[in-house]
């Protein structure tokens, strides 16, 4: 029985009904991974350990909510005794002695981590082209990028290899690849998910979240990923609801905000058309649309490209060749050890951001850049706060278009940075946001973004699930409509 393109919910039923054993499921998964090796979606496989766990589950049934579900983990999460590269040459030999809280939570729920997925180096990129381990191919077209930085995770789910993957989102790294690969992905409220064991890119923006075929699967995953963690002082000590509870409740009367400042007329007609169709569909489900103003939102991209590189320049200082990771050969002194190790270990995009970040934090520029950016960030957050007084969620396209060709933007950082135009504001404001498939352009999927109020993931998932039970965009696969 084929398991390709099956959702978590479907696989759980198959396991429960003994249509398939845990071991068979894992064996099939590895067969699919190998058949799809051209996608280059994995950096490291965890086959032996996965089979052992499956065998154990066959002999000792578990009550974990995700028992036996194969999951692909973004290679940004530390996994005990399993190589963790963060897409970088710098960590090509790094085997962590501990696991991230997210990994522990998912594995405690019974998930089997089958491997570590490819990604933009240190999560810096929107096309997966900055990975030291090569480009990831979008399953929807040979030369198409999967988006980034969680490109490997998105491609693996889109190709139906695994039903679920973890991702991280600093400026859109879950939602943008979800949009470009035609899957569902959720970035939770900042602080919902512990950052312990996530290799930091921009600490005040980074947040882990689920990537899956459906909003319902995202809810199942989020139930397990979230936890208050004393090891992360920015994690939120709030009751974690059952995110599946309200999925099927009607969205009659849901107030959806449309951002006045997003000038959609600048987008391709196709993209606007897809978005308009989704609006109509939500109206048919009983939602009402209200225009809102977020006056400072147009400053999001420049603000982000000051704050994120600043934090990254500091976070990446620990990669100095002294304690772990790569060290250059035969340095003649300490300075050369640093220079050679970091020149050889980091790729161009990472270096570019370290340089920008060091610049905006340096004496004489701090006030003009970093401090100013933090002030603007506060204004953006305030804009959202007042908007959520009149609406329940805010809707926009996730991306400016569908997947683009590899190489088409990699020489133009600004064009690449604008990929995250719609996704960045939610990170700056710390709000939950998700992307769900809502149309096709030239046989390529594209996504719809829903942004929610603080800690209001349930409502996002409810709105997304309501959309998915009445449309079939999320069921489309690169090999045709799913039966």
């Amino acid at each position, binding site marked *: 029985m084929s398991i390709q393109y099956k959702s978590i919910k479907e696989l759980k039923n198959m396991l429960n009904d003994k249509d398939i054993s845990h071991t068979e499921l894992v064996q099939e998964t590895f067969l699919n991974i190998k058949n799809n090796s051209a996608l280059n979606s994995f950096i490291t496989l965890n086959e032996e350990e996965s089979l052992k766990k499956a065998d154990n589950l066959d002999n000792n049934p578990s009550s974990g909510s995700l028992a036996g579900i194969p999951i692909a983990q973004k290679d940004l999460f530390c996994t005990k005794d399993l190589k963790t590269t*963060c897409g970088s040459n710098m*960590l090509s030999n790094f085997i962590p002695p501990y696991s991230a809280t997210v990994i522990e939570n998912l594995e405690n729920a019974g998930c089997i981590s089958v491997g570590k997925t490819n990604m933009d180096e240190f999560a810096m990129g929107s096309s997966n082209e900055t990975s030291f381990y090569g480009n990831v191919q979008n399953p929807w077209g040979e030369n198409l990028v999967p988006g980034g930085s969680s490109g490997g995770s998105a491609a693996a789910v889109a190709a139906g290899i695994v039903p679920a993957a973890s991702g991280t989102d600093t400026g859109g790294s879950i939602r943008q690849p979800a949009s470009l690969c035609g899957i569902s992905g959720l970035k939770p409220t900042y602080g919902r998910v512990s950052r312990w*064991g996530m290799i930091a890119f921009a600490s005040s923006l980074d947040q882990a979240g689920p990537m899956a075929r459906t909003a319902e699967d995202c809810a199942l995953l989020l139930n397990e990923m979230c936890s208050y963690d004393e090891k992360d002082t920015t994690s939120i000590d709030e009751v974690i609801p059952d995110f599946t509870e309200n999925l099927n409740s009607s969205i009659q009367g849901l107030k959806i905000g449309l951002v006045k400042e997003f000038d959609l007329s600048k987008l391709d007609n196709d993209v606007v058309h897809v978005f308009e169709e989704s609006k109509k569909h939500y109206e048919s489900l009983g939602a009402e649309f209200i225009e809102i103003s977020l006056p400072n939102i147009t400053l999001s991209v420049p603000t982000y490209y000051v704050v994120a590189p600043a*934090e990254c320049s500091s976070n990446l*200082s*620990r990669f100095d060749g002294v*304690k772990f990771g790569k060290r250059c050969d035969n340095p003649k002194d300490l300075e050369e050890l640093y220079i050679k190790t970091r020149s050889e270990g980091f790729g161009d995009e990472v270096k570019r951001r370290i340089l920008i970040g060091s610049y905006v*934090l340096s*004496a004489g520029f701090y006030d003009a850049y970093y401090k100013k950016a933090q002030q603007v960030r506060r204004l953006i957050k305030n804009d959202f706060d007042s908007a959520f007084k009149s609406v329940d969620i805010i809707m926009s396209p996730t991306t400016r278009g569908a997947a683009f060709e590899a190489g088409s933007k990699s020489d133009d950082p600004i064009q690449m940075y604008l990929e995250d135009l719609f996704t960045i504001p939610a990170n700056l404001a710390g709000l939950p946001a998700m992307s769900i498939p809502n149309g096709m352009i030239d046989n390529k999927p594209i996504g719809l973004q829903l942004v929610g109020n603080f800690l209001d993931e349930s409502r996002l998932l409810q709105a997304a699930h309501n959309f998915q039970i009445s449309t079939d965009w999320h069921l489309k696969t690169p090999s045709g409509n799913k039966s």
Partner: protein
Amino acid sequence: MSWETVIGLEIHVQLSTDSKLFSGGSTSFGAEPNTHVDLIDLGLPGVLPVANRGAFHKAIRFGLATNAEINQTSTFDRKNYFYPDLPKGYQITQMALPIVGKGSIKIEVEGQEKIINITRAHLEEDAGKSIHDLFDGETGVDLNRAGTPLLEIVSEPEIANAKEAVAYFKAIRQIVTFLDICDGNMAQGSMRCDVNVSVKKSDAAELGTRAEIKNINSFKFIEKAINFEIDRQIRILEAGDSVIQETRLYDSVKNETRSMRSKEEANDYRYFPCPDLLPVVISDEELIKIKNNLPELPDEKEKRYVKEFDLDSSEAKIIASSKTMANMFEGACAKTDDSKLIANWLVGDISALLNKENIDIDESNLTSENFATLIERISDKTISGKIAKSVLEEIWETGNDVDKIIESKGLVQIQDESLLETIAQTVIDNNPSQVDAFKGGKDKLFGFFVGQVMKETQGKANPQSVNEILKRLLSES
């Protein structure tokens, strides 16, 4: 026109918490290299710091004891620079909003009191240690110290000379040891300081260009380094040149400071708020609790000793100035009544022994129990003051019990007046010429007779009785 010196001190005080500032790693001194290092101290990818509240409580005690403003909301910043013993490539410190704001402390130099204002005191993590001389051509890194909590206490530039600087450092050391927030052990690096020195013409309004001398860890070196630096700067200025703003190191072997790096070579630390740590908020209740549990400080102790134990203010000051000395005094007073005698011995013989060996009283063999017994044996006339000195020396050597020393050495004082009288009479009988000379007016010979009696009794005679008996017998003979 004369020169005026302006000095400011930055003192790093290692706080005596069990675990580090941001991890559960142990802070104990002297372990095998790299054994007290956990994932956080190592700065592994993905780890996050969690602030140690105990360190905040200790910092607040310091703030309260120096009448400082306490910032009930304080924040952490990152100071970015590369060095092998700095695992993360940045140090977490408090730049923008330190836990302790403006305060002050009283110092005393040659009987003159002066108030030195304290700009701020902030928490930060210590770095590890680089070891350059143990491996040929390589540097070793020991991260045991990495992450140990430090309180950096920054003075205003109000210190006028080396003696004041030393007095200020001593005053800070006294207060942190009394507060039990630091062991004050300078040899183990529990307290270190950076000294900023500049000189200017007395009538100049602007401060001169300063040099910072890094990482000095003894009173003696602070004084020497400052004096060297003042001379150096005055020489430069008098030759018509300018002092360069720079960081210098003090070489105690050559007794000189030398340039480490100039302002141009100085790091741009790119400070910014640490995004991994939320502001630390201290509640009113927490603050009141710390305030109510603040231990008695030297000034208060001194006043109480005068009032409660009837000590001279000079004695009270000496005893109250050292925490261990005060503990010994209070411990002995709790067991025996003669507080003035206790104070005399502490300030006299015991201080002399401590100075001779350059140790602290808690490093000696003397316990407050044994000390109290010694005082009791003097009060009840079991032994004389002179014998007591030799008993003290014996305790100093062996730590043995006072009564056992007295018994085993047969040191019990001879109180028997008739026995003393017999001995005294024999001394008089055996020295007729001295008796004649004494009667002829050589009063000083009285001491000779006392000495002879003491010699006969191996020093065990009660000196007061001997005096009385000899006076009587000599006038009768």
